């Protein structure tokens, strides 16, 4: 009981710091920009972590859900009048589109054992990317420029979306919500059932666990979160394209991000994706600034770091910290 209390207090303190922090650094837009990216990628990584860490099904195509979430928002703001002035409901719709794709892939692969799920997500992402790239409806390789959401006036203040601050709060709330959902799920009865599937699917099914249904449930939640993160990313960055270069939302580079982040931070832990995301964004940005003329440098460092950490501890940095320091 005492431990739980301390944990809750620390969570409240962190939340207060996070909510008030922008007022001290509001002039440093670059720092705010990095924090927004940290939150968005932490959300994406958490959705990956739910599948890989708690169900034991690593997806290599989370860019599919992320990118399609972004493209849903992009296309809605492009073609439908209502969303041009108010893109925010499209965040949820992006999540649903991601979730539908997730359900389709899950229904195909979850009846099979083995690495088929990882391979199917990898293949499906490339299929969708090539279709988006060559379709006129999605403006092909030109990508979609998402117009700035008009500012919202409230009686007390005006939310101006040309600034970073609103995005900071939106992405922070999204991240907290996703972490909360995954935390609740992992502690609930369903979470325990999911972990029993990860440990031994045969034994779990012998005891009456409907493995297929549970995996589909986890898939739905995971791809929904990834879709919302993608839509948020699209509206924040303001431009999405399907090209093969780093930065294209449907590429392997985007699929890599949640894997790197979760493995470095700690797969199968709640706080891991946030730790990983901070390291990934901050160190990645530093490397990109220092070695800007050679694009792949940050991925080389992270590829190596990733393998090293995976060898040291299967639970990432948080796992290492937790085994060294007992009182956490």
């Amino acid at each position, binding site marked *: 009981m005492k431990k739980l209390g301390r944990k809750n207090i620390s969570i409240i303190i962190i939340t207060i710091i996070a909510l008030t922090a922008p007022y001290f650094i509001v002039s440093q837009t670059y720092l705010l920009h990095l924090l927004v990216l940290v939150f968005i990628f932490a959300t994406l990584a958490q959705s990956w972590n739910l599948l*890989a860490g708690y169900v*034991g099904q*690593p997806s*290599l195509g989370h860019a599919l859900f992320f990118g399609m979430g972004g493209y849903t928002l992009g296309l809605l703001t492009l073609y439908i009048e209502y969303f041009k002035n108010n893109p925010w409901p499209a965040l949820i719709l992006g999540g649903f589109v991601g979730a539908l794709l997730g359900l389709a892939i899950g229904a*195909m*692969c979850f*009846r*099979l054992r*083995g*690495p*088929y799920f*990882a*391979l*199917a997500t*990898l*293949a*499906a992402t*490339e*299929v969708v990317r*090539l*279709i988006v*790239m*060559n379709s006129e409806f999605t403006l092909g390789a030109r990508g979609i420029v998402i117009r700035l959401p008009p500012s919202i006036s409230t009686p007390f203040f005006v939310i101006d979306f040309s600034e970073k601050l609103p995005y900071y709060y939106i992405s922070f709330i999204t991240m907290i919500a996703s972490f909360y959902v995954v935390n609740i799920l992992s502690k609930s009865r369903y979470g325990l059932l999911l972990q029993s599937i990860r440990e031994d699917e045969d034994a779990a099914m012998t005891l009456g666990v409907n493995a297929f249904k549970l995996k589909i449930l986890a898939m739905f939640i995971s791809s929904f979160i990834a879709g919302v993160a993608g839509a948020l990313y699209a509206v924040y960055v303001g431009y999405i394209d399907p090209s*093969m270069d780093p930065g294209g939302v449907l590429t*392997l580079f985007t699929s*890599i991000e949640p*894997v*790197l982040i979760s*493995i470095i931070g700690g797969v199968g832990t709640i706080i891991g994706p946030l730790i990983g995301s901070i390291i990934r964004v901050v160190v990645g940005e530093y490397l990109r600034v220092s070695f800007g003329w*050679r*694009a*792949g*440098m940050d*991925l*080389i460092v*992270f*590829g*190596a770091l*990733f*393998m090293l950490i*995976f*060898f040291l501890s*299967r639970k990432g940095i948080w796992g290492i910290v937790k085994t060294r320091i007992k009182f956490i």
Partner: protein
Amino acid sequence: MTISLGLIINTIIHGIMLGVIYATIAMGMSLIFGVMGIKNLAHGDFAVLGMFTSYWLFSLFNVSPIISIPIAFTLFFCVGMILTRCIFKYIVGEMLGSIILTFGLSIFMENVMLLIWGGDYRNIPVEYGVYRLGTVSVGGGYLVAFVSTLVLIVLTQLFLSKTKVGIAIKAVSQDPEAAESLGISADMIRLVGGGLGVALAGCGGATLSLIYYIYPYLGILLTLHALIICVFAGLGNVAGTFFAGIIIGIAQSVATIQIPYALTPVVGFVVFLLILLFRPQGLFTRR
């Protein structure tokens, strides 16, 4: 574009030739999966390394690409053994671990290649002429690549089915514990199998460099092709990859007649997803 019989025959022949090269790469992947239970997602990157080996041997020392195929084989056999000793050994039979670790290796290799050699599209400027037979015309590069790949595949099959080591590799693929109880050192066999698997990838890459452009990020596409062929044939089924490769090659080539060239990889992926959807029982040929 009118579709004539000659065009169709031509595309099918080119499809077979391309498919056989994909099959070589896939065979290596299948072998590694069979011996160690590792789905090597960095496999295509070794093929790209093989392509670069061939390219640099040609442009620095003027070595003919045909000669660099056996050189690539020897080189990548050693690389594969080192890799097995240092990395693969620790993740034998671990599904999540092997996917994640080889994925990390793939990111690392692709970007190191990009860093060292840059992102240009290169090709080996060798001309072998064009051969004609009736309506069919085949580039010499294709012909050389096809023949050398066939020789490689036949030799690999003979090695796997006739020699003691080859049979031991099959035994370890089927049941490592039973094989060990019969006096086969599974570790040794894994070393050879891993070496051979990576060597096939590098060698396939060296042959592919005769007919394809060379680019650091090509690895993921080759990995995907190899995966599709492996799943089509059944994971770990080395012999079946040959025919699966040919079928995928033909399907992709014939598709180019009707759909835009940029969309051709989609055909392979759609085939892959359809197999998962409709013939999952066919995927478990080994179990």
